[in-house]
């Protein structure tokens, strides 16, 4: 396989003309969610061709994993989608448990659901802030969103020791049990969260400028979304009813009662509203999990964490992360280190249809569309 840099640039025949302008919305840009570049050809204001260029944050996760033990890769998975580290850990743990056939105790499953849904809440909260920042709203919504997100991160710090790089899941359970008083504080927080969402909706959802900028922009039909392999809120906004929590039914989700919202038009506004609706559903899940969590062990005692040697084989484990389907494909040769780990990042797969969504729109809309897909470069580039 050879690397041919000339294939990364536009051909002159691709709709170039006297009035077109080639712009590189470069890696350093205030609104691209990380180091992400887009080569854009514009006819006046309208986009004629768009080519995403990424790889600026490539950190070799997959190759590094081949030189660490199975447990040693766990802290690295925190750094993939750094906004939601717990769900990354969870996906890896699910994949390894599938590979090795490990059972997880019930209390651990409930704890996983609680922290996973809290992660979903804080991701969607941060999304609300980011998309307003992309539209030039000078940071008010961002500050309110981060104010709420800090409270969730404080809960994580109390539980795991770190706000962001939590390293919390283990094969067959979670690393440590909930401290005394954590559940009450989390419950109290979840009761205050709907008030925050209501305040954000009052600030945002009726705002005419927001509506004018989000509605009708970046429409994606359901069929194209399925063809592109999209997942997560982007897919559900285009009207497809596919949520891995319902399809696979991993963990204790089959015991919990929640609905999956989906949109009808598939534009940026639907993706925006969908995340607010999903946050409300997460609150429901959390309340049920708080009520149902049993006592018991939090780690499967039969599993050796250090010196873990799964049997020879291959497994693909996936979960519904806040951004979409996060999957780990593991190949084991029976040794202490994996033979190969491949990460299926939702942000990368969701980005494959970026050009299609952006053709024909104005340049200012490209930022909004990119913001509504909600990518994290740590995941895209790995």
């Amino acid at each position: 396989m050879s690397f041919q840099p000339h294939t990364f640039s536009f051909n002159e025949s691709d709709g170039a003309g006297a009035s077109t302008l080639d712009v590189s919305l470069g890696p350093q840009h205030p609104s691209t969610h990380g180091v992400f570049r887009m080569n854009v050809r514009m006819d006046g204001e309208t986009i004629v061709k768009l080519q995403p260029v990424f790889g600026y944050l490539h950190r070799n996760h997959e190759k590094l994993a081949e030189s660490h033990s199975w447990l040693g890769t766990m802290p690295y998975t925190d750094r993939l989608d750094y906004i939601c580290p717990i769900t990354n850990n969870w996906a890896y743990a699910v994949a390894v448990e599938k590979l090795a056939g490990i059972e997880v105790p019930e209390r651990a499953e409930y704890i996983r659901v609680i922290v996973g849904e809290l992660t979903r809440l804080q991701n969607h909260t941060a999304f609300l802030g980011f998309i307003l920042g992309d539209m030039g709203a000078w940071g008010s919504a961002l500050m309110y969103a981060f104010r709420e997100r800090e409270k969730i991160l404080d809960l994580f710090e109390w539980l795991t020791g770190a706000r962001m790089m939590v390293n919390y899941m283990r094969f067959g359970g979670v690393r440590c049990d909930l401290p005394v008083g954590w559940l009450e504080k989390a419950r109290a927080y979840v009761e205050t969260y709907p008030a925050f969402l209501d305040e954000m909706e009052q600030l945002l959802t009726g705002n005419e400028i927001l509506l004018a900028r989000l509605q009708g922009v970046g429409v994606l039909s359901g069929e194209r979304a399925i063809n592109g392999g999209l997942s997560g809120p982007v897919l559900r906004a285009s009207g497809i009813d596919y949520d891995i929590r319902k399809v696979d039914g991993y963990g204790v989700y089959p015991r919990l009662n929640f609905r999956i919202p989906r949109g009808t038009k598939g534009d940026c506004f639907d993706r925006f509203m969908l995340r607010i609706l999903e946050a409300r559903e997460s609150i429901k899940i959390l309340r049920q999990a708080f009520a149902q969590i049993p006592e018991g062990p939090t780690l499967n005692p039969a599993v050796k964490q250090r010196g873990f040697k799964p049997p020879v084989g291959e497994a693909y484990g996936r979960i519904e992360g806040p951004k979409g389907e996060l999957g780990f494909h593991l190949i084991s040769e029976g040794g202490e280190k994996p033979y190969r780990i491949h990460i299926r990042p939702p942000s990368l797969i969701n980005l494959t249809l970026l050009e299609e969504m952006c053709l024909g729109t104005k340049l200012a809309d490209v930022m909004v569309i990119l913001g509504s897909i909600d990518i994290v470069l740590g995941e895209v580039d790995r």
Partner: protein
Amino acid sequence: MNFLENLPLATKKFILDLVEWVCGWFCSKLGIQLPGWVMPALLTLVSILIVIVALIAVFMVMFALMSVFERKILARMQNRYGPNRVGFFRWRLCGLFQPVADGIKMLTKEDIVPRGADKIVHFLAPIVMVAPALILPVILPYGRGMVPIELSSGILFFFALGAGTELAVFMAGWSSNNKYSVMGAMRAIAQMISYELPLVMSAVVVALVAGTLSPNGIVEAQGGLSFGFLPNWFVFTPWGFVACLLFYIGALAESNRSPFDLPEGESELVAGHLTEYSGFKYAIFFMAEYVGMFAINGLLVTLFLGGYQAPFAFLDFIPSWCWFFGKLAFLAFTMVWVRATMPRFRIDQMMQFAWKLMLPMSFAALISAATWYYTGRGLLGWALSILIVGVPYLILGYFCFTRRHTADNRRYLFSE
């Protein structure tokens, strides 16, 4: 408190008297007899200088304070402190010395001029921007008898000079030898020209009712109370309310402030027409924007908010210039408030808003004002003018916004 009310004029008179006394003392000491025309000319010159110095000093101080207060108010609306550390020696002074720090930073930065840039135009653009901006406040009445220059066509002068800023924006973009700057400058000009029209039309509405283009005359036409309790300010009439709102939105657009800051915000390209400016020239652009903002807010206060007049007679103990600056401060606060709340328009939406909603509304306000005036300002006039303004607003608002962009006509399906 007549003392406070007359303080500025009394100070000016004191300085003039002082100058006269000093000159007379010198002449008598040296034994020179001056011709008759020297003294009055000297006094006129000194009087002009006092006015200029006072205006520039006041507006520079207001600009400095505004830059720090904007950041602090924006911060408070975002649940955080603004700049609160820069002070004097060891006193923190709540960060009020931040403009000093910012000024020092701007002044000591290297002044970079791009290689292929048109040097003369590049140099002149900030000057063309700031000179009209500093002249604009000269026709506004700051208090009773405190108009720096009494012009009978003051409003016309204001708008004529205000158009100079648009030229400066294009000069800045063109001379930078940078295709993104030119694009940003073209957008800025399109925006500013489109929003000039509703702005001027709103001022015309007021001129129609007041019967004069002189700012002092317009302020005086807003004296007194109607129906016994409502101040006669034009903002409290239906057509005046609409015209005030249109003027305010036009003021936001003319000053390139949020939500109309597409020319200068981190628009999808670099910083628009100001990309290639650094250091002192950037500071001058910044200053011109703020002084222009104050000037146009001052005009709004004059036209619609009753100028230097107190709303009710019993509040007259507060001096008139305090009222003027208080209203100006309130308007500046609302501009910061608007900036904190709203995202930016897209350029084509901005244009649509100006031409399809604001211009027809300004015409409706004109007709409504005429109706109100010629039916004798009575209750019938009020009812008719409300109708003439309200109906187009609802129709246009429906067609421009509600039908196309509402959250209500969206359905979200849920599945178990």
